[in-house]
């Protein structure tokens, strides 16, 4: 049986956006950038743990209406 050893990251808060440009913009905006940490691909990044609600409020102030799952 082949071995697929991997690391499982659980409870990871994520932000997913529709376009890479939008994530670039959010990661360079001083209001949202501090709360967005590791980028996993061009449209997905890990949010600072425990900071989803803070990021949600900041995004709403920027005129966004994020879907929260």
């Amino acid at each position: 049986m082949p071995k697929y050893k991997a690391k499982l990251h659980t409870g990871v808060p994520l932000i997913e956006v529709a376009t890479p440009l939008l994530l670039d913009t959010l990661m360079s905006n001083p209001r949202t950038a501090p709360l967005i940490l590791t980028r996993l691909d061009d449209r997905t990044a890990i949010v600072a743990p425990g900071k989803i609600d803070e990021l949600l409020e900041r995004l709403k102030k920027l005129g966004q209406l994020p879907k929260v799952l």
Partner: protein
Amino acid sequence: MGVRFENYFTRLTAPLIADMAKCWGIDKGYSQSQFKNAITRALKDPQQIQRLIAGLQPYERLALEIAKSQGGQVSTSILATTLQLLEVEHPFKVQYNSDSDFAQALIRRGIFIPEVRSNTLYYNPNYDLLMSDERILAQVGEAKFPQILLKTTSSPDTSSYRPAASVVFSILGFMQAIADLGGVKLTKSGTPQVNSFRKLMKAQRWEETGTLIDGFWFPQPTEGMAAAFNAASVLIPNDDESILVLANPVEVFANRPYLTQVGQILSGFTVVSNWAEWSPSGWINVERYIEARQTLLQVLKLLPLDTQDWYSLDDLEKFLFERIGDRFSLVGNLPSPLQFKKFVDQPELAQRWREERQKDWQNREKQWLRQALATWLYLLGIVELGLTRSAPTLPTTKKKSPESLPPNQTDAIVSFRLTELGRALLHPELALHLVEMTPQPAWIVQPNFEILVYLDQVAPSQIVFLDRYAERIDLQQHTAQYRLTRESVYQGLERGSSLEEFIDLLRTGAKVALPQNVEIDIRQWGGLREQITLRRHTQIVEFSDSQIMQAAMAKGLKGKILGDRFILLEANTPLTDSWVEQRINYDRPLASCLSVNEIGEVKTQEVADLLLETQLKRWMEPRGKNWALTQASVTQAIRSGNKVNDILEFLEERLNHSLPQLLKVALTAWSGRAPSVEMEEIIVLRCINAEVFTAIAKSKKLRSHFAGQLAPDILLVKRSQLQKLKQDLEWLGIPVEQLTIQD
């Protein structure tokens, strides 16, 4: 579970049990246990129970019927008041302490037992509350009370009532507001938190002191509604009793028939203990207010049903005074004066007492009666209120409505009658048919995003729908107004439905086509929601390279590929344990893997989480395998929008020791919040000869030259006193030399 007398024998006195046994045909000469056994046996025999009931006096039988109608338990005071209201004679009517005597007489007749306080080990009967055995109640018929024939009155100038749909609209709106707030938080003592009530009040657009409902003053509506919902078990404490939450979701409650919904809240209002319709002093006698509400409901229930006639408030008040005015009062039951000999001998004394009593009644019970009709009985659509155009000049201490509100019409109430809803609620046995609304076109969406809702056409499920997606802005007797906003639509969609479902329901509930601009904007708002998704808790599998990831997917691992070596697992996807070599849970504190010295040099241990490297890069400069916090790196991070607290929190979480204080000062200063420090050159006097040093330091003459002692052989010299000190030292014969302190 019904009551069975044998479970309570141990808490009854021997004489009471003996008297009870006598009613069941067991007379003297038996032991206590024989009495108990005999009663227990008799209660198992329906024929014996029927024989006992057949031998009861009319008032005793009625007492059982009333108890049955209230679920087996009845307040002695309410029982006595009800009998008096119905003009049913009983021998305890005019005796002092008559309620207690009355209760004990019913117990001795073998048909009731007193409620016993269950938290006490000793005999502690409570004659205020009586309970009957379920097997006795099973043999008792339904209570058949005589009608109350109040004098009818002419139709009023105008009238006001709330249709069933409006009532349900209010109930569901209050429930939705509670749901939106996540419940009503409780203090440690179990009372609702003031702040929680304020939020609820704000959501309902009510004022703290009260609100006008169709022009009728409703005092402290947040407290009243919450108390009634709680008493009706619509609002219940959560497991740790820290918050009152809805017992059922709003949509579940909304799907029940109107009568069930309103009836449940009505049952709550009749027993609320921490709210009053009106109080002359702010203090309320809880039991008397509950008795008053139940008596008033009883009167309404006994009004003729086959008529649409109106009854005057004055006649109702007079009727109640005539029937129960000599025993009932909101501030406490009155000892009847009729028992006193002087009242019997001198009828004019009794007349004077009654006149005084009537004056009190006018100022107190009548005011309450008016407010009871204008508050919960009107709110719940049970009565239609008749109004006069010229308000009577009745004395009132009721709080006036705020100037910003329309005039308070409560004082204009002159008459009332039961509504269709009221009849159906008070007479469930008649199974009156109420028209229940089913979803249909019931509103008009206007180009300014406001929705005009016709309450006589809207179904409860549609009210729940509107409450989810729009803000309530106004409620009239027959219409309600909502407003669609970006935020309200967003919040509605966030509760779990799709944009298309929302637009479809909005369209099918509308009487005319949706304005084009409204639909365009709603679609734009919905579209914005597709731009960004925040996921609170996800599971991500990290592979060492792309090839292994692809191989795992070929073997059935499902999820969304992120980059070239991550897979975002679908919700609830189990992962074969044998694949997982390490688990990292981001809900828990991550590994403390850093150490740092005072000058910001950071050493790291190898960790598996996906955050550390990003955070190190964000705040530090790489130094070979290690990292360093520098003024430049911290300043750069601050410029990018980070806050000094972010780095302090990060270090606190990830350091395996406490943060050096000096570095904390540096980080704070580098972030632009430099502390204030002052520096100054000072003059000191040093003398290594201890005897001489002490002589100088303790000298009254020299003391004023020094600011303090810095060390066992060093004194701090006041700069302004330097010359004087030199002169004094020269006078002492001590040559002064320039001092140098050596390490």
